[in-house]
């Protein structure tokens, strides 16, 4: 198992925001996190990224507790794309992607060919190479999301954590981004709000409700009409798509 978590709990005050969550993602697979707003997806991702210390339980990378790995060593193998990361600063696309090389450089070492190649490859991978000198504030939401992904790729990670990366993107860019994530062959945990997209692009799904795991498994095994009603509070019918073979949710009104 590349990423796994055992009985993770995290609370603020008396409220349990992540409540006894265990999961495991095999190398190169994509785990989708689903759940209504406020169900704890972002909090769980922050725990997996080592940004918060769990009240109990642990996060393991290839069997090692991440608390024992060290922040910089962790940043060299795991990258996070946050939900609403923006800046007031007047940065260029290239500067943002360059940030991804920080964990690979000591404070005094220079910029190497390896660094340069990683940045170019990452920009190229997300289709932003032609816009490397654009200003952050001149980018559309979709372009910013791709730049964040490029920054994460410049970290040369083996594990990738993504928090609702397709928010604010039009459908073409949503599909392109998810397809790209699938092709990267990195161990990925991605929070998504579109259940059909999750079913299409993820190998495994984990459904959270009020911080607890309510279902976990392959999309075709866990997506059900009862789940849609109990967790997402909508009436829906689910069938297997004749076009791509994955489950497809039809919402009823």
């Amino acid at each position, binding site marked *: 198992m590349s990423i796994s978590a055992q009985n993770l709990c995290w609370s603020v005050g008396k409220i349990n925001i992540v409540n006894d969550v265990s999961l495991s993602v095999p190398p190169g697979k994509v785990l989708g996190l689903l759940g209504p707003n406020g169900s704890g997806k972002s909090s769980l991702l922050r725990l997996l990224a080592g*940004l918060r210390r769990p009240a109990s339980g642990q996060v393991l990378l290839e069997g090692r507790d991440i608390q024992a790995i060290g922040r910089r060593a962790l940043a060299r193998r795991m990258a996070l794309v946050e939900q609403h990361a923006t*800046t007031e600063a007047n940065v260029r696309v290239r500067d943002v992607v360059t940030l991804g090389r920080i964990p690979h450089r000591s404070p005094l070492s220079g910029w190497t060919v390896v660094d340069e190649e990683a940045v170019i490859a990452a920009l190229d991978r997300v289709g932003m190479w032609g816009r490397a000198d654009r200003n952050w504030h001149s980018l559309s939401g979709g372009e910013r999301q791709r730049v964040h992904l490029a920054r994460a790729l410049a970290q040369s990670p083996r594990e990738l954590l993504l928090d609702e990366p397709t928010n604010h993107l039009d459908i073409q860019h949503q599909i392109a981004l998810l397809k790209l994530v699938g092709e990267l062959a990195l161990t990925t945990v991605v929070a998504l709000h579109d259940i059909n997209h999750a079913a299409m692009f993820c190998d495994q799904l984990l459904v959270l409700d009020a911080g607890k795991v309510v279902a976990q498994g392959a999309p075709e095994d866990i997506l059900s009409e009862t789940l849609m009603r109990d967790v997402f509070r909508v009436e829906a019918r689910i069938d297997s798509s004749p076009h791509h073979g994955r489950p497809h949710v039809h919402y009823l009104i």
Partner: protein
Amino acid sequence: MSTPARKTWEQAGLGLFFALGGLVLLVAIAAGTGIGEMPIPIETTFAAVTNRLGWTAIDLPPIQESVIWDYRLSRALVAACCGAGLAICGAVLQALLRNPLAEPYVLGISAGASTGAVGIIVLGVGAGTISLSAGAFAGAFAAFTFVAMLSNGGRGGPSKTILAGVAASQLFNALTSYIVTTSGNAQQARDVMFWLLGSFGGVRWPEFQLVLVVVAVGLLVCLYYARALDAFAFGDDAAASLGIPVGTVRLVLLGITAMMTATIVSMVGSIGFVGLVVPHAARFIVGHNHARLLPTCVVAGGIFMVLADIVSRVILPQQILPIGVVTALVGVPAFSIILYRAKGAA
């Protein structure tokens, strides 16, 4: 994709830029040494300096040599160091707190240092520059601790830290006024008033040595953390996920900026606006990368302060304006131009 060539060009351009900047700074310092009530030609200035360094033995009027060496040169050099130091502090605080308004003045650190120093002046505890500096230090660190505690060590988010700073400014300014009105006589009140707005009047070589060391150490520490400062652009979690020890970096850099501010304020009073306007101007020229931004702040801050000092000495005959008045009067229009020209880029 001719990247290597492009890098080389960028580096050459940058080298040229810093060489030019350094040259302008030198010229500004020379001008600061030559211009004043007694105008001294630039050749005399250089001759006086080389004489003192033992390189030449040109015959000069002793009075001119003394004015240059004992008074104006040290003053111009201190002004350059103070401008550089305040600009570094502003750039670092703005990055760290992700707020374009952050600077020692806004965060109350200058106000705290002023209270400490004014306390020493008015209450007359101890005597001389040493106790004045000690008072300013104590005040700066009191304000720093106050802000740090109110904002949970800066973890409360950028706007919380700024609000804590505003509270600290109010508190310490009130304390300063309290001390002055209850304990000071009219003359002391005037002295304090003048000192609060900043003055390079009393500085000589010992002050230069101190401020040079402090600003140089501050610059080196901040440069060491230049990449960490870049990483703060997208917030604490983004920086932490890039492997930056966020808490440590914040504490070290806040401590360093408090130290630089305390030293400068204890020496020349609290001079506003330099820490705010210079980093923005510098960012406008070299962008957000701190490895370039901080040296640019040093050069630009130095030039700005030396020129402001010249203006403060020559604008009114027979009278010296407080330096803080000049920095604000020159700084605000400059800032307006920057804002106006940058409005498209936010």
